């Protein structure tokens, strides 16, 4: 079964760190540029994220994630570059199409922002097993019942994707068309999705029974199957990042007082 998570265990430093350190890194990468008020900080964080990902040998894995947002970014650059209100300075002329400086600058800011968000998240999601992260949250006091809900999504989706393949084949073999004009394709949607929906809802009943039999609602303290993921460096990394955040706030406040 193919997992939906892009995480891969490479034995890298990022793999060994506690999830909280990486989450703190995301917060720092997103909040610090806003506090300092400079796009340069975002660019620096993009560079750091790329460096970390390269060092952990997972840079290639960012491609599908960048691909999802890449198309939207492309439309942003085109639309803002061509049509943004306040476009006056032509920068680039391709035949009848004129890209304007103001719109492109605006689009560039969006691109930097989005890349910073994407890459800093990649530092977390490409180097952390989702179930490890959720287990750590449960250790810190998150409800174990909801912890189960989150973890089970990662098991249910691959199962349902397999069911989907089976059902698509079954309906096709009965003569249902899944290609053709829009109307044909719209008509195909309900016979495809409803069997999966029905079976997964009926499965919830069995799953609930199975869970209750195994003491899902027991009130006593839960134990963990896996050891907590953390390394000796975690404490120092977290302290450094909090200090950086405080330094950023102080720098901004002092800047405002002058």
């Amino acid at each position: 079964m193919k997992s939906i998570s892009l995480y891969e265990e490479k034995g890298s430093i990022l793999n060994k760190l506690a999830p909280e350190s990486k989450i703190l890194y995301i917060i720092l990468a997103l909040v610090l540029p806003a506090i300092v008020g400079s796009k340069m900080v975002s660019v620096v964080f993009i560079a750091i994220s790329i460096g970390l990902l390269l060092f952990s040998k997972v840079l290639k894995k960012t491609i599908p994630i960048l691909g999802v947002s890449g198309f939207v970014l492309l439309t942003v650059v085109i639309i803002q570059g061509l049509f943004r209100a306040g476009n006056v300075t032509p920068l680039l002329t391709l035949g009848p199409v004129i890209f304007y400086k103001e719109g492109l600058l605006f689009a560039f800011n969006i691109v930097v922002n989005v890349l910073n968000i994407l890459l800093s998240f990649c530092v977390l999601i490409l180097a952390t097993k989702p179930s490890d992260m959720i287990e750590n949250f449960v250790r810190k006091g998150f409800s174990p019942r909801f912890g189960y809900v989150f973890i089970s999504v990662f098991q249910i989706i691959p199962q349902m994707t397999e069911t989907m393949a089976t059902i698509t084949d079954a309906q096709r073999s009965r003569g249902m068309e899944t290609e053709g004009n829009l109307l044909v394709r719209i008509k195909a949607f309900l016979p495809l999705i409803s069997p999966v929906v029905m079976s997964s809802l009926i499965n919830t009943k069995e799953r609930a029974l199975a869970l209750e039999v195994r003491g899902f609602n027991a009130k006593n303290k839960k134990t963990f199957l896996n050891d907590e993921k953390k390394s000796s460096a975690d404490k120092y990394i977290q302290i450094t990042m909090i200090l950086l955040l405080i330094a950023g706030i102080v720098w901004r406040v002092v800047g405002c007082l002058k």
Partner: protein
Amino acid sequence: MSKKGKSLWSLNFNTATLVLIPAAIGINYLGKLFAGVLKLPLWLDSIGTCLAAVLAGPIVGAICGAANNIIYGLTMDPISTVYALTNIAIGLAVGILAHKGFMKNIKLSLVTAIVAGLVAVVVSTPLNMAFWGGTTGNVWGDAVYAWAIANNLPVFFASFIDELIVDLPDKIAVLLIVFAISKSLPKSLVALYQSGDTIDSLDN
């Protein structure tokens, strides 16, 4: 679709309701996948959220919406995490309306669809403005956006129309599908998610 006497805002979930949440997220995911396979011009990625809201109420709907986008965020598309707000709003709106009886027949569920669509647009537009400068990434919507700002209409208006043109048909399609599915579910299954606070019975 709901029994009298059970609090709409109860946070006391039984196991069946909790297990419904991951199933709903899976259904969201499959809807999106099928829409992609069939090359439909809609997202269809909130069928599970709406279905859960209809079956188990607004709180469960909202939790499904939030968990759905957080999990997308942690696997494929980090930016979709912020759109959790939109899905929470959809879950709440559909759950409340379903409780008030707005999923009884196809006409009323169209009303629900339009309300859910408008709610989604109102919540999404500021997010689109903040993260993308107002575009949605959908070809049709963005074409309208480009036309609107080229004609010097305000950016928030262009963005609003951009989102509306994608979201409203999407939610209408989603809620009609949800209506069709929820009507054909076996009664014993529906009752499972609506059990009151006193008796939690799984064997019926």
